[in-house]
């Protein structure tokens, strides 16, 4: 591997590394716009200039590969002066939109001007005018005046999605990013161009004018939209609860993970978080006495559920768990059901419309934890019924207690009549989930679940990668994480209290995880600390 010196520090990096990455390895940040590690080299912005010994003029770092013995300087006076020049070139025609531009606070013209520019502007002629506030598609807004023509978005649509919607038309300072007239930027990855646009040229229509980015808090998490579990950051507006239309979660951004999603996030995942702050969220337990379920205390609701679980024989109980639940939730449920001897359990409810793989990130399976549910044994126990069987048995009143977790059965792939029969037939219908729906409306007991964004936990993605999500906000109302509810139920069931299960007795989610790692060979040796930010694979 070539050895080179950067700012006096000797480092060794793989052959083929460019100087931006090499400098980063040596602890030096080389400012740049058009370079992106996930895209081809453009060499257009000219900002990433560095000085190299024996080379008369500064060179762009993105297109220069390391060589044995190379000596690089990223902070010479000449490099700094060149950066100041390049910043001025970038700002010649740039509109003074900061007060109305969403990018403010995370804009790389602002950031680099403050760091590398700080000159007095002298361009007093009329700037070039181009179209502003042009919707390119359902999610992306273009302001062509703000565009610095780094071409990242064009390269993204060519190289990552292969859809080629964007181009740079005309030439000179009339060059303009745009769509072919009559087309739209509506592929399932359109939101990524917003991430990679260094400035406010491509902004999020969903996020437009909602809240200033300096009010946002961030939490590392994982998307729950499909079995890939793209790594994300959840950005929340807790500091300004009256902004963002009163909703807590402002937006999702992808988090880099080389093995899962690289730098990208699909639109379905990126914009699929509205349910977390939706008015349909279940925020309090409810118990039906006469008429519809009435809000009540956890104490009452837990008593009702524990009563039902205690009253019925194991074969009269049917449980539809969900691959939307975390590993912790699922393991605690498994321990509860095993303790009760309930074998009629399943997690595989077919969707109404089968999803499709899109050959990039999106998986056909639109659940984040199918692999976890499989590995943790939430399928039917010995002699137990599967999901369809449970529904039919409920319709026939053989299963008297039907406990549905998270599934909106009326929107599933099960025929309406079959679902109706089950919901009508079950003597006691328990619904535990995050959002109200037609199934919860018919339940005798409703238990509000915390959303994944409101708690700590893990999902296991389709590759077998166990990934942590961290709480971005606190549970809404009185909602609780499912695993905690199962423990509270266990405390009310004498048979289970006596057993003293580690998962059911846990007070913190990492304790539940430790219990499942001890109990399930596939998870042996894993821990929250070990999972870190990038996750770990289950054992084969």
């Amino acid at each position, binding site marked *: 591997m070539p050895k080179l010196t950067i700012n006096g520090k000797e480092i060794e990096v793989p052959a083929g590394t460019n100087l931006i990455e090499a400098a980063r390895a040596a602890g030096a940040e080389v400012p740049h716009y058009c370079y992106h590690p996930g895209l081809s080299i453009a060499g257009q912005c000219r900002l990433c200039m560095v000085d190299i010994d024996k080379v008369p003029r500064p060179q762009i770092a993105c297109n220069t590969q390391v060589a044995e013995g190379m000596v690089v300087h990223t902070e010479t006076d000449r490099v700094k002066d060149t950066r100041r020049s390049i910043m001025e070139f970038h700002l010649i025609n740039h509109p003074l939109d900061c007060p109305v531009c969403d990018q403010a606070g995370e804009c790389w013209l602002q950031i680099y001007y403050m760091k590398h520019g700080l000159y007095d502007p002298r361009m007093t002629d009329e700037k070039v005018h181009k179209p502003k506030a042009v919707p390119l598609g359902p999610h992306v807004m273009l302001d062509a005046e703000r565009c610095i023509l780094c071409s990242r978005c064009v390269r993204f649509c060519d190289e990552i999605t292969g*859809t*080629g919607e964007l*181009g*740079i038309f*005309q*030439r000179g300072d009339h060059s303009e990013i745009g*769509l*072919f007239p009559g*087309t739209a930027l509506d592929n399932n990855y359109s939101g990524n161009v917003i991430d990679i646009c260094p400035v406010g040229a491509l902004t999020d229509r969903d996020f437009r004018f909602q809240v200033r980015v300096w009010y946002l808090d961030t939490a590392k998490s994982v998307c729950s939209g499909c079995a890939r579990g793209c790594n994300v950051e959840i950005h929340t507006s807790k500091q300004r609860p009256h902004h963002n239309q009163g909703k807590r979660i402002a937006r999702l951004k992808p988090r880099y993970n080389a093995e899962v999603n690289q730098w990208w996030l699909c639109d379905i995942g990126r914009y699929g978080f509205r349910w977390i702050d939706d008015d349909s969220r279940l925020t309090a337990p409810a118990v039906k006495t006469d008429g519809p379920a009435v809000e009540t205390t956890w104490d009452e609701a837990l008593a009702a559920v524990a009563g039902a679980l205690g009253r019925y024989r194991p074969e009269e109980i049917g449980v539809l768990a969900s691959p939307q639940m975390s590993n912790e939730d699922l393991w605690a449920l498994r321990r509860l059901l095993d303790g009760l001897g309930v074998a009629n359990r399943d997690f595989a409810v077919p969707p109404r419309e089968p999803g499709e793989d899109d050959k990039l990130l999106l998986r056909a399976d639109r659940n984040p934890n199918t692999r976890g549910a499989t590995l943790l044994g939430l399928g039917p126990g010995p002699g137990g019924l599967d999901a369809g069987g449970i529904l039919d048995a409920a319709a026939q009143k053989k299963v008297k207690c039907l406990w549905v977790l998270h599934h909106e059965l009326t929107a599933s792939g099960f025929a309406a009549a079959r679902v109706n029969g089950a919901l009508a037939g079950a003597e006691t219908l328990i619904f535990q989930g995050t959002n109200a729906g037609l199934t919860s409306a018919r339940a005798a007991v409703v238990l509000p679940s915390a959303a994944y964004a409101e708690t700590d936990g893990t999902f296991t993605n389709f590759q077998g990668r166990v990934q942590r999500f961290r709480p971005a906000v606190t549970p809404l109302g009185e909602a609780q994480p499912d695993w905690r509810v199962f423990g509270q139920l266990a405390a009310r069931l004498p048979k289970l209290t006596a057993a003293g299960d580690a998962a059911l007795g846990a007070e913190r989610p990492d304790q539940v995880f430790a219990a499942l790692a001890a109990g399930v060979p596939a998870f042996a040796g894993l821990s929250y600390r070990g999972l870190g930010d990038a996750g770990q694979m289950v054992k084969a």
Partner: protein
Amino acid sequence: MADPKNPRFTDQQLAEVRRLQGLYPDKRGALLPVLHLAQDTFGYISLEIEAYVGTLFDLSPAHVHEVVTFYTMYFQQPKGRHVVAVCHNLSCHLMGAKDIIEHCKTTLGVEPGETTADGKVTLLTVECLCACEQAPMMQVDDRYEGLLTTDKVDRILGGLA
């Protein structure tokens, strides 16, 4: 007459497109020649033609549009039966191009970039055509006309059908 709003090449033209594509190691190399062919056929390059040509090259319409808007010889709007392109670069400027351009504007009654109302002439001012020995000069359709005087310009414009 080939319809620029509903463009289709004839079988013979499509064979020519394939022949041109075969001359290059990557068929995309034939894009500029095929756009010239399209302009000769349809009179100018409409958006519909861009999308159609894109299908012949497996190129997104945006990438064809990039090429059409980059080069000055592709007209994106209908042009006159004749194109009169007067050079306004340095040698021609030194030799009186400004007067020639003013004369053309007055005689034709249009600004550079516009087409006369009768559809006869599109007037353009262009950069160096590399015939500076004949400055001031202009390109009229396919041919260069140089050593221009206002009289010579009148004769040339008058001779356009």
